[in-house]
């Protein structure tokens, strides 16, 4: 070892001290001398030697005691201690090692042996030091990593909860495989008070999986608040993930929209285990298997945004899962499995299902760390009555800026839509986006969205596509209706829908006039004009009755294919 060492030599006999220290100096090392155990302790503290040569029999404090003290006082600093002993019994050597010594040399000292031993011990000391340094570095790295993970965890939590809809009828359970979950569960309200849910599971787990799902969050919340349908959202999510992520990364997702008043669920499942709708008696009324590859795999042209629809007659619970719960393994590497999961959900009393499933998963895994993130989302349909109207916690910076612009605007928008536009454009969100640009007060957004939706659907479904809304009252009617709508629209050749929206002042009131005209055959509107919303129980008639309630004036023209309504803005 080329390095110069500082060696503490402890001996109460002056000639020994001299002999050993001279020899060590000759080897090129530095010496520090002590004449008893107490002095040795003091010198050890002040000089920090690299190696100690310790006599055993000394006045004041002997070598054993001094060694024991050094080991006790400096538990984290390992310096080799070698006994120089006249005692040559095995028991003495054992005692030396027991109190913390590392080696011994019997007196009289053979200098060749001493040199060899010093080399051996310093080599070990060198390795020891290296290990300590590495450990320190590892600890630093781990602490640094820990801090970064905490920050990332905080950010991801903030991002995913930013716009989250809170309601006790919506629940989520997540057990991450690492610090982070690559699974997310989001819930949000559309302007028309439909609920959108998303359970997404990014490839892999941990931070990289969590990074996968971040772009998903923004798109989901943003498009939901603008009123886009989940099929349009799925399309955009797919496009975005494909664009941002490398090929081998994708996001399995279940998207759901819930129309509480019509009791309709739309589900898009790409790559997740089946979503289940279970009624209060424990019967699985409907399950939605994965019908598509996960998001981020198909190109825009290949992507299928088709959703599957369900109309619930009896109340129930909708369950969404990532593959984690199904694939959770116990000590014998046995999967929890879909069958066991369904068995628990269908046999437990409705109010205990969620808890029983969590408990069963916990006991199945019995403390074994999960391979993958586990997620279960639940929504009660309908929502629990105690809190029937969900409200979203959103920060609306727009409202302030609107308050500042006091001068009223006057504008008019006219649109003429032919089949090619009707097939490709999500018209209502587009109209609503224009309203935002026109600084329509956000307090009116929900109502205006509803009016647009009703008038547009009415004109398109009945005017242009010629659908019969009495279909809906038949069993399975909703499914058939939507299927027909889908087909008629795909095959549409002729037809025009004209829309005018205008902001004006009439008799000292600020109003918005909305005019829809379709090329269809019209209908007998007298019954609608005279009915009121509470009396109308048919799903079809209810739409226009709602519009009538929100507007100061509603007028039909021609054969009924033209409708004009005035909505009060003040």
């Amino acid at each position, binding site marked *: 070892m080329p390095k110069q060492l500082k060696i503490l030599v402890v001996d109460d006999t002056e000639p020994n001290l001299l002999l050993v220290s001279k020899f060590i100096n000759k080897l090129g090392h530095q010496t520090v001398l002590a004449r008893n155990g107490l002095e040795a302790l003091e010198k050890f503290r002040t000089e920090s030697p690299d190696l100690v040569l310790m006599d055993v029999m000394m006045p004041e404090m002997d070598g054993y005691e001094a060694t024991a003290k050094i080991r006790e006082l400096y538990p984290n600093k390992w310096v080799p201690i070698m006994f120089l002993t006249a005692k040559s019994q095995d028991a003495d050597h054992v005692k030396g090692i027991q109190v913390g010594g590392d080696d011994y040399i019997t007196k009289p000292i053979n200098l060749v042996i001493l040199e060899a031993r010093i080399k051996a011990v310093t080599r070990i000391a060198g390795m020891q030091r290296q290990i300590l340094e590495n450990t320190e570095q590892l600890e630093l790295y781990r602490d640094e990593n820990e801090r970064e993970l905490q920050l990332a965890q905080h950010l991801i939590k903030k991002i995913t909860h930013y716009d989250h809809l809170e309601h006790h009828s919506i629940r989520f359970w997540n057990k991450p495989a690492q610090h982070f979950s690559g699974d997310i569960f989001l819930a949000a309200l559309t302007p028309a008070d439909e609920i959108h849910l998303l359970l997404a*599971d990014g*490839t*892999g787990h941990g931070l990289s999986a969590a990074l996968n799902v971040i772009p998903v969050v923004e798109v989901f919340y943003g498009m939901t608040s603008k009123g886009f349908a989940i099929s349009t959202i799925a399309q955009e999510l797919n496009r975005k993930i494909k664009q941002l992520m*490398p*090929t*081998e*990364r*994708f996001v*399995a997702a279940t998207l759901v929209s819930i129309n509480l008043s019509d009791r309709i669920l739309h589900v898009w499942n*790409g*790559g*997740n*285990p089946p979503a289940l709708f279970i009624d209060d008696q424990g019967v699985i009324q409907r399950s939605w*298997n*994965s*019908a*598509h*590859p*996960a998001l981020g*795999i198909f190109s825009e042209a290949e992507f299928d945004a088709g959703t599957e629809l369900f109309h619930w007659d009896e109340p129930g619970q909708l369950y969404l899962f990532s*593959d984690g719960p199904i694939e959770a393994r116990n000590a014998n590497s046995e999967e929890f499995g879909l069958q066991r999961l369904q068995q628990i959900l269908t046999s437990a009393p409705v109010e205990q299902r969620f808890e029983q499933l969590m408990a069963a998963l916990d006991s199945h895994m019995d403390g074994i760390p999960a*391979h*993958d993130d586990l997620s279960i989302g639940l929504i009660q349909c309908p929502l629990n009555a105690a809190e029937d109207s969900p409200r979203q916690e959103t920060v609306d910076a727009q409202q302030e800026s609107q308050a500042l612009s006091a001068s009223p605007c006057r504008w008019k928008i006219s649109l003429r839509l032919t089949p090619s536009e009707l097939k490709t454009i999500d018209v209502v969100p587009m109209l609503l986006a224009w309203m935002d640009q026109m600084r329509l007060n956000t307090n009116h957004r929900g109502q205006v969205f509803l009016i647009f939706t009703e008038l547009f659907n009415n004109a398109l479904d009945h005017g242009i596509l010629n659908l019969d809304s009495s279909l809906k009252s038949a069993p399975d009617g909703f499914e058939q209706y939507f299927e027909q709508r889908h087909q008629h629209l795909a095959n549409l050749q002729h037809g025009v829908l004209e829309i005018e929206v205008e902001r004006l002042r009439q008799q000292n009131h600020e109003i918005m006039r909305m005019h829809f005209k379709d090329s269809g055959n019209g209908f007998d509107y007298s019954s609608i004009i005279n009915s009121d919303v509470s009396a109308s129980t048919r799903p079809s008639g209810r739409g226009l009755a709602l519009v009538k309630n929100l507007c100061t004036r509603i007028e039909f023209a021609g054969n009924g294919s033209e409708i004009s309504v005035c909505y009060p803005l003040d």
Partner: protein
Amino acid sequence: MSTVQIKTSVESNNAKIAMVGRFDFNSHRQFREAYQQVLENPEVKEIEIDLGAVDYLDSSALGMLLLLREKTAAVHKSMALTNCRGVVQQVLDVANFNKLFTIR
């Protein structure tokens, strides 16, 4: 630590990559080494991934298959997944990989 074994064999225009064991993230390097060879082989027209002896397949494995699909298309070769059964079949079904791959 990898728990998969990969055997590659080439017979005229067909290269077969047979996987045994657990095909997951830890197989990444081995899998890449295996397909890299056959991708570079100009004789090979079709790459067959034999999943018959795979007892588990995770989403990272699906990702690797997608990556290989892209790479084989780029060098104008074709690709097929074969002998998929049991859990492997289930995972491929849930992922709807039949819409993306030739599965025999």
